[in-house]
């Protein structure tokens, strides 16, 4: 029931808002997202971290094509659902100060997006997964298009087509797997696993690429990332938050759920390439972030770097790597949301996100400054912040995988510090200038948004164990698939 509510509540409210334009759109949307949050917390409450898939619903949908409405959560799904439901109310809240000529559509699209994101994370049917995956693309595209900034037409179109390219290859891959399922074909997760695992190495390798490219584009991993910085910059703040905070996790989640256990041989064969690309991406994106002057663009590149580390760690196929990836997904979601919100606050106050035009904000806004420092520390993975736990686990996995790779990837802790400190210094320190003269400190609403994030950043950093426990069983499951598989082939 809760599962259905999680999917239907935002959908229903979204449709309501899209069809009947309401004057209280934002209040309605906020309530819906809070209800969603409560529902997901209820889910977490009843979740048994030792159990397998829970709250499952499996209903035939298109039986002739072997497609079922099959949803359920395991630990990893649950955490990502929580990330989605936690961030969405804050994203909605963050938009309250936005001048918006079509609020009803805006919030409708955000809720639609939430539905799709939750759907992606809970789907246990290949087709359903693809469906939600694609549906998620539409609202965000419209949000970026309609409420976006300069150059949005070209950029959002590129974004859409680029990500669609990947998705279509994924679809081809999924259909191929579907056709390999024995008897009456099925998209059921287990069936797809069985089908993929029974394929010879060569085909698994090809399938790896068909699926991986989709995920790599979504994350994005170097060199499939060029849609991302432009899109982040041009999208409205809430769009960017959705994109970076939650949506890019779809790609990582895809790798965990729909790639590694599906084609274990293919993954084993090609994970090295994926790791190399990811590690290049870390250094490359960090390097570019260093010279960015637009704060949003800087965050965008930093996000590529972070995601590169996640992907690299994940591809080591180790317990630490996978756990690190999961926890880092949550952490990154929170951090990047906060960063983009801070960027938005700059923009609202000064009309600019250009770092060289800011400065001295610390004088005027000590609370914001403190929050920024904490978020920044999380971003550079200082211990006792959420960023550290994941990054440490990921680096551990990478070092274990290969020392040199790990060492290169670990450069991120230096480069990350370089660009984040630079951003902080340029925007916050120094004397106030003509742009920032009228800067004022956080309003109550902004505090309501940012303080919980700060609490989460430090909370997860100091006590990550509950989260790690939730995902532990699921991660072990996936790893045992790999282990069984390599045991049976050897």
């Amino acid at each position: 029931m809760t599962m259905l509510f999680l999917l239907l509540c935002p959908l229903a409210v979204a449709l309501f808002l899209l069809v009947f334009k309401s004057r209280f759109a934002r209040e309605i949307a906020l309530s819906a997202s809070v209800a969603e949050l409560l529902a997901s917390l209820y889910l977490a409450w009843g979740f048994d971290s030792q159990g397998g898939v829970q709250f499952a619903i499996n209903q035939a949908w298109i039986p002739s094509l072997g497609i079922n409405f099959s949803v359920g959560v395991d630990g990893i799904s649950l955490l990502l659902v929580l990330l989605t439901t936690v961030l969405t109310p804050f994203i909605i809240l963050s938009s309250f100060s936005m001048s918006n000529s079509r609020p009803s559509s805006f919030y409708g699209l955000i809720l639609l997006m939430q539905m799709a994101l939750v759907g992606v994370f809970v789907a246990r049917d290949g087709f359903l997964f693809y469906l939600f995956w694609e549906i998620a693309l539409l609202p965000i595209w419209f949000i970026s298009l309609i409420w976006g900034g300069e150059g949005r037409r070209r950029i959002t179109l590129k974004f859409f087509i680029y990500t669609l390219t990947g998705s279509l290859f994924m679809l081809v891959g999924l259909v191929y797997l579907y056709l390999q399922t024995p008897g009456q074909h099925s998209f059921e997760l287990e069936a797809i696993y069985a089908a993929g695992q029974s394929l010879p190495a060569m085909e698994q390798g090809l399938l790896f690429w068909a699926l991986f490219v989709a995920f790599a584009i979504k994350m994005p991993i170097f060199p499939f990332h060029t849609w991302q910085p432009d899109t982040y910059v041009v999208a409205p703040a809430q769009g960017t938050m959705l994109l970076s905070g939650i949506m890019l996790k779809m790609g990582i989640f895809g790798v965990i759920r729909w790639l590694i256990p599906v084609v274990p041989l293919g993954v084993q064969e090609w994970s090295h390439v994926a790791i190399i690309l990811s590690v290049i991406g870390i250094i490359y994106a960090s390097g570019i972030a260093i010279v960015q002057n637009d704060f949003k663009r800087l965050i965008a590149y930093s996000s590529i770097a972070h995601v590169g580390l996640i992907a690299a760690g994940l591809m080591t196929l180790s317990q630490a790597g996978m756990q690190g990836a999961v926890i880092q997904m949550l952490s990154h979601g929170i951090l990047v949301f906060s960063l983009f919100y801070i960027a938005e606050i700059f923009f609202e106050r000064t009309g600019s996100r250009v770092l060289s035009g800011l400065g001295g904000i610390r004088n005027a806004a000590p609370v914001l400054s403190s929050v920024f420092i904490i978020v920044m520390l999380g971003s550079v993975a200082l211990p006792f912040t959420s960023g550290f736990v994941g990054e440490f686990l990921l680096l551990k996995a990478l070092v274990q995988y290969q020392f040199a790779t790990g060492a290169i990837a670990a450069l991120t802790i230096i480069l990350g510090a370089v660009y984040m400190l630079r951003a902080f210094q340029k925007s916050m320190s120094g004397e106030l200038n003509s742009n920032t003269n009228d800067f004022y400190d956080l309003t109550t609403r902004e505090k309501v948004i940012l303080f919980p994030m700060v609490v989460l950043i430090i909370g997860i950093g100091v006590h990550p164990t509950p989260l790690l426990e939730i995902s532990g069983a699921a991660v072990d499951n996936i790893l045992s698939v790999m282990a069984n598989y390599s045991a049976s082939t050897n």
Partner: protein
Amino acid sequence: MVGLDILISLIPGLPLLGFLMVSLFNKHLSHAMAAGIACGSVLVSFALSVLTFSQLLSLPVEQRSFHVLLSEWISTGNISANISFLIDPLSAIMLLVITGVGLVIHVYSVGYMHGDPGFNKFFSYMNLFVFFMLLLVMGSNYLLMFVGWEGVGLCSYLLIGFWFRNDAYNLAANKAFIMNRIGDLGLLLGVILIFIHTGSFEYADVFAGIPGMDGGIITLIAILLFIGATGKSAQIPLYTWLPDAMAGPTPVSALIHAATMVTAGVYMVVRNNLLYSLAPFALEIILVIGLATALFAATIALTQNDIKKVLAYSTVSQLGLMFVALGLGAFSSGIFHMVTHAFFKALLFLGAGSIIHALHGEQDIRQMGGLKKFLPLTHLTFFIAVLAISGIPPFAGFFSKDEILAHAFAHQPLVWGLAMLSSLLTVFYMFRLYFLTFYGQARASAQKMQAIHESPGNMTIPLIILAVLSVTGGFLNVPEILGGSAWLHQFLEPVTGASHAAVTVHPLSHATEYVLMGIVVAFSAVVIYFAYQIYMVKKSIPAAEGAPSGALQNLVYNKYYVDEFYQMIISRPLHWISEKLDVVVERLGIDRLVNSTGVTVVEGSKVLRLLQYGSIGVYIFVMVVSVVVLLALSLIN
């Protein structure tokens, strides 16, 4: 009676609490209350440290270790890191130094920071620093040490950039953080490797596992950890942040950049003495780098005119000396020097702070002089500190430095020679500083001289306390030949003893030791005389900025252009590469490639649409051709 576990947990817990209270209620607390909370928390911490220390002492030697498990931190799969504390002789000594010196400096700061708008913030940061520093030394595992390690770096960053309106200070803060991070990278990799090869982060488990490890790995780990140390303890090549870090308020320089944080590297190496003892190559590296740093920094200090810069380079140099000790395998000597150095260097900085305070921010020694009569107490304590750092018996520095030199001689006379050279240079520049500051003509502007005054009590009392410690600190470890019992050495034995199996410290004959002592003292006296001749008799004043000077002097004055060198080989290329990555690779390369697929389609579209020529003749023509082709294809089939 509360359990000792809880008391131990409170040692770092209280400063954390202080930090939280002061920072969360920043606006609502008066300066006095904030100062009270901050100093009070450190005071209680200190008291608890003393209590813990006494508890430790009351136990037999082999049981002197408390392990307190506070909670689980990261736990997944086979990875398990706890928040747990280890109190053993080494951490107990560190506790005392940190909370003790920390307390003194907290009190001093109340006076020094008086009236600063960021007063509360300052104390919250200071408390946070104490918390992290305590975590660093108390943590019972590598990961917790790393937490403290990074945490103190953070506080250092926050406090260097404390006066954030000044962009130069901010840049200094960034530089400190980033250079520390370079070191941290090494440390982190080392820690990860340790875990991978021993399966645990806990010191106890790791030390048990180390002997079974491959020698190459041990050396690699040792070097990686030492990279961490070079960052935090400002050794070549990562030392340049420390002089810049003097941008922070002077108490910060005293606490963080002289007494405690920068010695974390020393602590870490001593903590891992077993590991290092099994990696002789790493020890060699430490020795060489320590020696080089000691000499290099000392020469720079000779020419500096900023009072804090001189002290900063002196710190670098002294830290180098400590690493020389570590490199020689004389771990307890390193700790000994660290302790005494904490006393007299903190005193020097606080004294300098007092001077700066008195002169309203003036830091250039060329603008000082003749301050003896205006600041008598400061002068006296400063003089004690100068004597201590110069190794004049019976001040603290004499004992600790002498021990290191003795070990050096035993290892290799050349090492001894170089180490002694550096310590003689130290003597020279310290006396140069001392003479230029307190004697001769008052060169400060009249305006500044008018308002000059001795610092208030809450600043001078700390000076006195530290002065006493600088005088007596050496008696902690009076060597046997001077009739002492080398108490500290004995006390640390449970910790450092682990390395004895692998590292043999050659004992020197008593005669040799006496001779060495004599030589050092004699030479020091000569150097003092020279300094006296130059600065008291000839009354020479360092040249003003831009005055012509010899190439060598220029080189040294400009710190060997190391900053510029780094700028040239790291910073600028990094920027250049980043710029090129952004503009060339990203926009003209990858993105262009992506866009070009789109452009190709659009261009293709422009071409293909011409096919739709509009004229029926053409359409039919193409149709017929298609039919022909189709039929021809069918024929071929």
